[in-house]
């Protein structure tokens, strides 16, 4: 039996996240009420697990750290076909940087107990650091391959994967148990089915707090984070004085072609 853990994150809806802005006067964030959704790249991590489950006897555990509302995205993964959901939620986990996040998730994975393959999206849409997967691997003492775009060979305990590199790929061989962070190219995530949603109603989510994880409050959340935000500054964007080219469509194309000729493009 292949035990798969998929780490997922609830992120502010990327379609609305651009509305979160710094208030130049108070230097705090404005419009933080953006709804939470499943991080887009984590859908590909989930899909990778589901495709393995279609091939092999496998059990999929989904793990997330976040506020209680993040339970919704764990539910969503259960509806997609995961077998068991876990949410690490405790006020003490708040304010975690990538290091403290990976540390806490690694503790969660240890508590889940059996894992052969751990999938993460290569990055989250809000933080975008790409650190969590490799740091989880380090805390668990496991090998990792980041930016996986193709699983070439996954029959035995030694896998071969293609990882993305600029203008090409890196072929890597890795022994399980191992961590993989996945790119969009790996697969096309399925969408939720009605029957999946019905089945997920019967599945439970385990909620684990600080005490249940058995870690000290010093090593998680803001306190366990080596990095902190020291300052938040509103920035004058590179403003330019724009000349809007107006007229009929033909006049506009004429004017723009002229400008491009002047600029030496044509």
């Amino acid at each position, binding site marked *: 039996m292949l035990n798969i853990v998929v780490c997922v994150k609830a992120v502010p809806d*990327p379609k609305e996240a651009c509305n979160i802005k710094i208030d130049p006067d108070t230097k705090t964030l404005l419009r933080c009420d953006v709804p939470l959704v499943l991080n887009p790249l984590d859908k590909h991590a989930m899909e990778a697990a589901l495709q393995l489950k279609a091939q092999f006897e496998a059990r999929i555990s989904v793990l997330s750290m976040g506020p209680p509302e993040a339970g919704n995205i764990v539910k969503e993964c259960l509806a997609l076909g995961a077998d068991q959901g876990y949410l690490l939620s405790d006020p003490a986990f708040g304010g975690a940087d990538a290091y403290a996040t990976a540390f806490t998730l690694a503790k969660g994975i240890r508590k889940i107990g059996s894992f052969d393959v751990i999938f993460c999206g290569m990055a989250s849409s809000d933080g975008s650091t790409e650190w969590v997967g490799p740091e989880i691997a*380090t805390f668990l003492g496991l*090998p990792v391959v980041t930016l996986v775009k193709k699983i070439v060979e996954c029959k035995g305990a030694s896998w071969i994967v293609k990882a993305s590199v600029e203008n090409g790929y*890196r072929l890597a061989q890795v022994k399980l148990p191992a961590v993989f962070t996945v790119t969009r190219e790996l697969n096309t995530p399925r969408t939720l089915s009605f029957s999946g949603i019905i089945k997920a109603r019967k599945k439970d989510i385990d909620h684990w707090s600080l005490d249940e994880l058995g870690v000290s409050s010093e090593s998680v959340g803001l306190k366990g984070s080596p990095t902190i935000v*020291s300052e938040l*500054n509103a920035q004058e964007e590179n403003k330019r004085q724009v000349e809007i080219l107006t007229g009929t469509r033909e006049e506009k194309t004429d004017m723009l072609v002229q*400008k491009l000729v002047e600029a030496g493009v044509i």
Partner: protein
Amino acid sequence: MGTDHRAVWVIAEQINCHLQSVSLQLIGQARKLADQLGTLVEAILLGDKIEQPARQLIAAGADRVYLGNAPELEVYQPELYTQIAVNLASEQQPEIILIGSTDMGRELAPLVAAHLKTGLTAHCIDFVLDKELILEQRIPAYGGLLSIVCPEKRPQMATAAKGVFATPEPDDSRTGEIVLIDIPTDLPGRVKTLEIIREEPQGVPLETASTIVAGGAGAGDIDGWKDICELAAVLNAALGSTRPAVDEGWAELETMIGQSGKMVSPEVYIGVGLSGEQQHMVGIVGARVMVAINNDDKSPIFEQVDYGIVDDCRKFLPALIEQIKQYEEKKNTCE
């Protein structure tokens, strides 16, 4: 050199014995920081037959290069590279480690940071020492600039993309020390790079292009996107994209411009169907002429360009492409 501060490090990278430009750019930053701290710039460079790139690091400002020179280091090997960097850093305890956000750096940096139990900041666009000489690692976010610090743990670690910082002028008369390092042999061997294949990129490369046509979510669908590609083709421009265009699967990740993508510095930039979000715009450095095509006259992109067209790109682009073709034809017959 009498100093309270340990060295500033760069983990450099070579591909086929050619130094990555970002490594040299980070040596420039390390030099600036080390001078303020009164300390040395040191680099780690791993590969095979790489004495020449090691000397290049010294010419760019490094005082010492830890050189791992062996056939098994020719390409990035995660276990070996991590172990070497972690061993050296544990021994030497540098103050700061800078790494380029290349495909290797993005994996190696968190592996090294987690082993050293320290913080790591991604996508920095500026490095400044504060009053206590702590490194402020600045990243663009939420329409402003965040300063991230790692006040207690050492080293302070950060990554930055190629092209964010200028490449220092090489000074071949600079001298520095090259220290050959031992290569660990007691590795678990659980992950191995079998091969790395790189192809010649197609079309005009973004980083060096003098004209860039970048498209965004406003393309609407793959057909709308094809118009943007065609505009780039008729202008002999490089094609760039925003994150939504990559997310939709219209564009390759390699074409994304911005904070978590590429940094570009074209002469002329034409943004089509994109809103001018900060995370995209920070990727465009010093363009002489900026043009935007967007159907919303209130879009923030119009505050950041020299010429604006308010129109539906799906209707405007075919007309524009036609016009450009006609112009080129006329030009050719006149010549």
